[in-house]
């Protein structure tokens, strides 16, 4: 259960947030609830500059920035979201909160790479796919199962990035273990390798349109 509260954000943003919490309840791998009591909250959406009434053991603050603001990366500490609140940016913020809470609970310095093989049961949402390399990683993991090292080598992403992606997908129910699976066998094994000219066209397409 993730309990969410607000502190000094605009009434219209509060209303939107409450509605979105109802809509998203259970869809981020967790139940979601709103609370008036900050002490009970895991996450608080707060106006910038407002110090949280309860900086409890685990409260994560999400700063709600005005619509016209254009924060430069690194200018703000912690999580932030630019108004107006929408399904997409609230989902993205809540996912980041879940990850922050998970990391806070992990023992210091602990990086336990996932053992075993995994594949995706469905594609992740747009917020995850906006990160460089993730569309390719997701395409690989929907085509066949990989272990962490194999997925890292095939996607070109660092093992920690693949590990984080897989753990998030497992938490959301998008990924599953594939223990006992045969070694990598492409589903379209009969298909020939992509000819050089076609690979070259795809490379140009990526470059020209700045695909990731």
């Amino acid at each position: 259960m993730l309990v969410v509260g607000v502190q000094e954000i605009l009434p219209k943003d509060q209303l939107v947030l409450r509605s979105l919490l109802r809509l998203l309840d259970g869809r981020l791998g967790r139940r979601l609830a709103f609370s008036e009591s900050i002490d009970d909250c895991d996450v608080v959406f707060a106006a910038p500059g407002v110090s949280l009434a309860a900086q409890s053991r685990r409260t994560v603050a999400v700063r709600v920035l005005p619509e016209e603001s254009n924060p430069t990366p690194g200018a703000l500490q912690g999580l932030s979201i630019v108004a107006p609140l929408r399904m997409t940016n609230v989902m993205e913020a809540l996912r980041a909160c879940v990850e922050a809470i998970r990391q806070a609970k992990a023992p210091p310095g602990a990086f336990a790479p996932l053992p075993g093989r995994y594949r995706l049961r469905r594609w992740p949402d747009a917020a995850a796919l906006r990160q460089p390399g993730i569309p390719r990683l997701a395409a690989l993991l929907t085509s066949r199962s990989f272990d962490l090292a194999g997925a890292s080598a095939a996607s070109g992403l660092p093992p920690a990035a693949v590990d984080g992606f897989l753990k998030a997908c497992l938490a959301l129910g998008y990924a599953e273990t594939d223990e006992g699976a045969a070694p990598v066998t492409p589903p379209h094994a009969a298909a020939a390798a992509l000819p050089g000219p076609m690979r070259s066209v795809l490379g140009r397409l990526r470059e020209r349109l700045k695909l990731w």
Partner: protein
Amino acid sequence: MVNLPNALSGETKIVFTGPMGAGKTTAICAVSDSKTLSTEVPMSDGALRAKTTTTVGFDYGECRLDEAHTLRLFGTPGQERFRFMWDILAQGAFGLVVLIDNTQPDPIGDLQRYLEAFAPHIPRQRTVVGIGRMDEAPSPSIDDYCQRLGSIDPLIPIIEVDVRRPEDVRLLLSVLVSLVEVQHE
């Protein structure tokens, strides 16, 4: 298989389809080099939101990759009565982008219809789906789409997008290109 004859001859074609008002023309404009060719006419059934015209032939845009290669982007007319055009435009296409308007009465049914119509021409492994206007109509959710389409293909990428944002169109193409690449690895 990838439609290699076209790709190797310097032409790579991607088809954008979906119901009227889903944003096909907008999406093509977002990634085309210059002005697109559009065969839009005033809507005979009245305006749909701010939309007063609809495509009756096809939309066409180009993106020059280099001296020898051009990406050609085709948008189909959305209305079922122009369905004969879908088959023509899909011939030799390298990939398919289906755009769905989530404010319509049966958007999942719309998606099923388009997937079935294009399946003979473009394999599902080279199809990506963009769901638009989810801010206005959050239901059905992406989860709902995945559940309903599970029997057809649970692994079709279904992504919330706003095609008025060029980066969202590029997101769809990033996924499509990734799909093709990994099929042959």
